[in-house]
């Protein structure tokens, strides 16, 4: 499906090409349609656009020169990492250049003493932890796509993962970001220290979806690996009981290393694919992890089991070895590809709600599934209220994508109504750009645009993404009706 990007540019194609040819050798500049085609979408395959050109710079000076050239010519630039993003944040702009950072894939330094790693943006998330492992350290944020997704993209999206309730999001684990402004000026956000002078621009860069700067180097914090981790699988005969059990665990003063949930359709999709050994009769399973010293873990697992039992778990299974723990998690982490095997297409939602509303949300999703006649498997980062309903559809069946999109839109609107947000970790991109109007007032949207202009006055970096134009907001309001889109008090 084409995404109607309403931010358009009158670009001088031949002048742009001429300048890029001066800067880059031919193999780093893609011009022909068959070379451009692989770049037409990211992990959100439902939306595609063909870029004018793709550039693959290898050095910071090439990045700077390309940006200076594009800035001078008024040509938009869309930065791109591994393109595993699920919101279309790296989808090309048809008037613009895609800048792939794929060649920036060196781990520049692992320093066990300062517990930091300096990496280029194209380094895969898991590769950082692998490189740090000999020192007993790892990089804590672990998005499920961690074998493929890269650090630059993690910063751009402020990625979470299954352990972020205890260990934080990307923003909590990044010390410094080096990059370039759209004007091609080198800039550093953050420092080797725990804070830096002036406004906390590092916080802004995390989750800025490539709209504020191009990232070329990231310094991340490394965390000592806990001596031991064990996970409890808690099965429930009712998804709402499982939802309530999540609040019960937190209420008991426990902050689990990870607290995840899958419903029956999700475990049924995963089990044949991963063979994690899940009980397929249960309506829901919670994965509740404890980490620390062996005695600490033993104590906490007992406390967790007591709470989960009281919350109505029908059975509890504790991992007995590291291999078993990893297998239990493998099922959860493979949920998206597993669902991808049983349906031609799916949309992954990413709303976050206050934990106490989980049960209510689950009921609503079941009703919406019936309303739209589509199947939905639910995987949740339950500990932080972040939901990933996977809406299954077949793009070849007329009308199914539209129904799936409407289904997803209602889930997101409900997330906002329940006091949450339309996106917890996948970003707005193009996918949620319209529903942003359900969460923010026109004045807030306008403030976001002014903030962007503070970094990118011409609006050339990843245009039309992340923040809707005010015209788009008006259109959404008119289509959806004021009741659906009047932002309720979020707190």
């Amino acid at each position: 499906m084409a995404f109607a990007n309403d931010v358009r540019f009158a670009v001088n194609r031949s002048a742009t090409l001429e300048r890029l040819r001066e800067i880059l050798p031919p193999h780093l500049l893609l011009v022909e349609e068959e070379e451009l085609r692989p770049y037409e979408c990211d992990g959100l395959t439902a939306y595609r656009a063909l870029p004018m050109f793709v550039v693959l710079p290898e050095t910071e000076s090439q990045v700077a020169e390309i940006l200076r050239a594009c800035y001078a010519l008024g040509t938009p630039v869309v930065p791109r990492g591994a393109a595993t993003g699920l919101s279309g944040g790296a989808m090309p702009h048809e008037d613009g250049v895609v800048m792939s950072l794929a060649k920036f894939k060196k781990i520049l330094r692992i320093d066990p003493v300062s517990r930091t790693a300096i990496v280029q943006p194209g380094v895969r998330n898991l590769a950082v932890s692998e490189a740090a492992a000999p020192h007993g350290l790892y990089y804590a944020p672990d998005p499920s796509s961690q074998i493929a997704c890269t650090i630059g993209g993690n910063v751009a999206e402020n990625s979470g993962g299954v352990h972020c309730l205890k260990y934080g999001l990307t923003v909590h684990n990044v010390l410094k970001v080096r990059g370039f402004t759209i004007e091609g000026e080198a800039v550093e956000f953050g420092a080797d220290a725990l804070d830096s002078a002036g406004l906390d621009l590092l916080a802004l860069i995390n989750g800025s979806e490539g709209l504020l700067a191009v990232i070329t180097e990231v310094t991340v914090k490394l965390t000592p690996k806990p001596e031991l981790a064990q996970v409890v699988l808690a099965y429930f005969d009712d998804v709402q009981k499982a939802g309530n059990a999540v609040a019960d665990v937190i209420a008991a003063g426990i902050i689990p290393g990870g607290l995840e949930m899958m419903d029956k359709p999700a475990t049924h999709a995963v089990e044949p694919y991963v063979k994690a050994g899940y009980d397929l009769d249960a309506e829901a399973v919670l994965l509740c992890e404890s980490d620390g010293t062996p005695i600490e873990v033993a104590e906490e697992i007992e406390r967790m089991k007591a709470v989960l039992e009281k919350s109505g778990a029908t059975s509890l299974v504790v991992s007995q070895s590291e291999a078993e723990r990893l297998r239990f998690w493998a099922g959860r982490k493979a949920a998206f590809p597993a669902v991808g095997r049983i349906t031609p297409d799916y949309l992954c939602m990413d709303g976050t709600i206050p934990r106490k509303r989980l049960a209510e949300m689950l009921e609503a999703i079941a009703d919406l599934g019936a309303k739209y006649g589509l199947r939905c498997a639910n995987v949740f980062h339950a500990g932080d209220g972040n939901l990933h309903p996977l809406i299954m559809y077949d793009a070849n069946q007329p009308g199914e994508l539209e129904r799936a999109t409407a289904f997803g839109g209602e889930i997101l609107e409900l997330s906002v109504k329940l006091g949450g947000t339309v996106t917890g970790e996948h970003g707005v991109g193009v996918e949620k750009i319209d529903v942003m109007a359900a969460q923010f007032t026109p004045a807030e949207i306008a403030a976001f645009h002014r903030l962007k202009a503070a970094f990118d006055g011409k609006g050339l970096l990843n245009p039309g993404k992340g923040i809707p134009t005010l015209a788009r907001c008006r259109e959404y309001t008119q289509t959806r009706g004021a009741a659906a889109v009047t932002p309720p008090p979020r707190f």
Partner: protein
Amino acid sequence: MDAQLKEWIGRIHDAAKAGQQLRIRGGGSKDFYGLPSAGDVLDTTSWRGIVSYEPTELVVVARAGTPLAELEATLREKGQCLPFEPPHFGSGATVGGMVAAGLSGPRRSAVGAVRDYVLGVKMLDGNGELLAFGGQVMKNVAGYDVPRLMAGSLGTLGLMTEISLKVLPLPPAGMTLRFAMSETDALKKLNAWGGQPLPIAASVWHDGALTLRLAGAVAAVRAARQALGGEEVADAGAFWQSIREQTHPYFAGEKVSAAALWRLSVASVAPPICCSGPTLIEWGGALRWLRGDQGAEQVRNLAASAGGHATLFRGEDALKTAAGAFHPLSPVLAKIHRNLKQAFDPAGVFNRGRMYPEF
């Protein structure tokens, strides 16, 4: 809309129109911090109260003028806390001031800073527009992260009215250990321990002694105490409080209080920073306090070569005006700062000159 907010909006409009400035002030406990700022005081202390608090959500929402002491007492009743231990620096400290100052206490290196716990803000910008960013959920990437940007912004971007914060359970167990140790050895030890899964919550090195606080599960604290050695310090609460509130003799002693106090935020692995005056080290080596009369440029160069920056934390107004309170920004960052000020407060109403003289 509440009458108080309406009144503030009116004052913001009037000030913007007349080209005048407003100086946002809570309890005034951090008046000393940053540069002296011009303008009529806009007092936030009447806008107080906890709006919502649900321990099972780990989230509390409070109006900006809420006394910090009141917020912390409410959390403590439910066995929870602000883990970053923000300094009050006076009985009047407010929640809004805590976020605006962005200062964190002894546990910062273990648990994160104020900014890491800010989930949402409601604010009035320089146009008098009431805006809400973020919310009360842990994960939220809709729109730019304005709430965290507000932490440490010293009121230069707007008037925060309501703040939503993540909270955590109080650690079940704690213990304080002390070691006789040189500065060099302490820095080495702290960085080595930092690479191990030890429940180290806070550290202070001063005058040949390293004081270490452990916090966490009972079993973890007990095991760490075995592994680390050192002397157990009884009733260490007062000591940590004196570090957090800077009532420790290093900060408040009569002899030293006249000299300037520099805050150097540096890489934890940076070697001892040579200065004429006495030093106190926190945050596993990442925060170095320096007392003395050395030149601002010299201190800032030392901080920069140690991977960080230097703040003239306490000192005479004349010295601050001459040297600047905060580390100078690179030209590109300075430009972004000016643009952001323009974006949020185009008429330059709020806290002019408090952070940098040019805005």
